[in-house]
């Protein structure tokens, strides 16, 4: 039972619609999933993997396979980012899990550069609906590709952290890293 050979032949035939693999991070084991269009999902350790994969099967394609080699580029870029050396990801985002205003809000979020922050109100305005502050918050809370789509860079008016799908400690760690805080002062 040679699953690596199987993955190779399936890929050669274009039969792998979603490839996923684990990615280590300073705050635990992440799971990343890519399609031909780009990165479609990044899940934190706390998310139940079976549920994450089933959602991909339902909403993208049931041809979901674990293929670590397909994630090499994503893994390298994330490693560089966590070390503070990478400010932009070159892997494109596959937006197909986002629709309507959530898509607009996430695209606006994607444009926030490394080290900068917006408030939820500013994000709503940037997405074209200044009054949709609550919806902008929801779009961030359910962001399918956190870190790459930097929902951690969106804060409450006045500077409070707001929420974060991966937990507030992770949000704080990412913001500290981007502001150049020395690693010793960080939580992890």
């Amino acid at each position, binding site marked *: 039972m*040679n*699953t690596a050979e199987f993955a190779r032949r399936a890929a050669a035939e274009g039969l792998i619609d979603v490839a996923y693999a684990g990615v280590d991070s300073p705050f635990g084991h992440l799971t990343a999933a890519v399609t031909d269009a780009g990165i479609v999902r990044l899940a934190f350790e706390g998310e139940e993997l079976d549920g994450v994969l089933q959602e991909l099967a339902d909403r993208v394609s049931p041809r979901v*396979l674990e293929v670590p080699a397909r994630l090499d580029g994503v893994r390298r870029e994330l490693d560089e980012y966590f070390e503070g050396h990478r400010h932009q990801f070159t892997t494109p985002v596959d937006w197909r899990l986002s629709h309507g205003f959530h898509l607009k809000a996430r695209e606006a979020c994607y444009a926030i550069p490394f080290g900068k922050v917006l408030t939820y109100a500013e994000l709503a305005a940037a997405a074209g609906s200044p009054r949709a502050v609550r919806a902008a918050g929801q779009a961030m809370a359910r962001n399918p590709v956190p870190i790459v789509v930097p929902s951690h860079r969106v804060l409450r008016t006045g500077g409070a952290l707001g929420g974060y799908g991966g937990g507030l400690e992770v949000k704080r760690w990412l913001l500290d890293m981007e502001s150049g805080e020395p690693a010793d002062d960080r939580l992890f």
Partner: protein
Amino acid sequence: MKLPPFQMLLDEHGSDVHRYLAARVGPVEADDCWQETMLSALRAYPGLRHQTNLRGWLLRIAERKALDAFRASRRRPVPVEEVPERPAPPAERPDPELWQAVRRLPGKQRAAVTLRFASDLDYAAIGRVIECSEDAARQNVRAGLASVRREWVR
């Protein structure tokens, strides 16, 4: 019906399918048949409807691939008189000569005996894989075992 991610089929049933094929076509052909089975399954997977028994579906594809391999081996220009010696089988197939006797059975008997004793399916499930009734499946297992026993005693 929601289809689970294909990786789950590989994880849950991949080794069952391989065990079935190893008993059905021998350890050397089994690797190729397993690849062909899983590639066929992956090709057809998104179009699958009303499928409640994914393991049975995979075994049905495996059975077709085993038949293909069997037909291909009969078409080969230089048939061999004797089955070549093979390395010791894994623990789940402790008696390679016995399984070679099973492989000499006619098609449905061979599939039925293999499904019963290598894959541990009940007769109803065997019937679904080889497309016959539960009674016919039981009859195929019984007839197959009788032949193997006759050959074994000789």
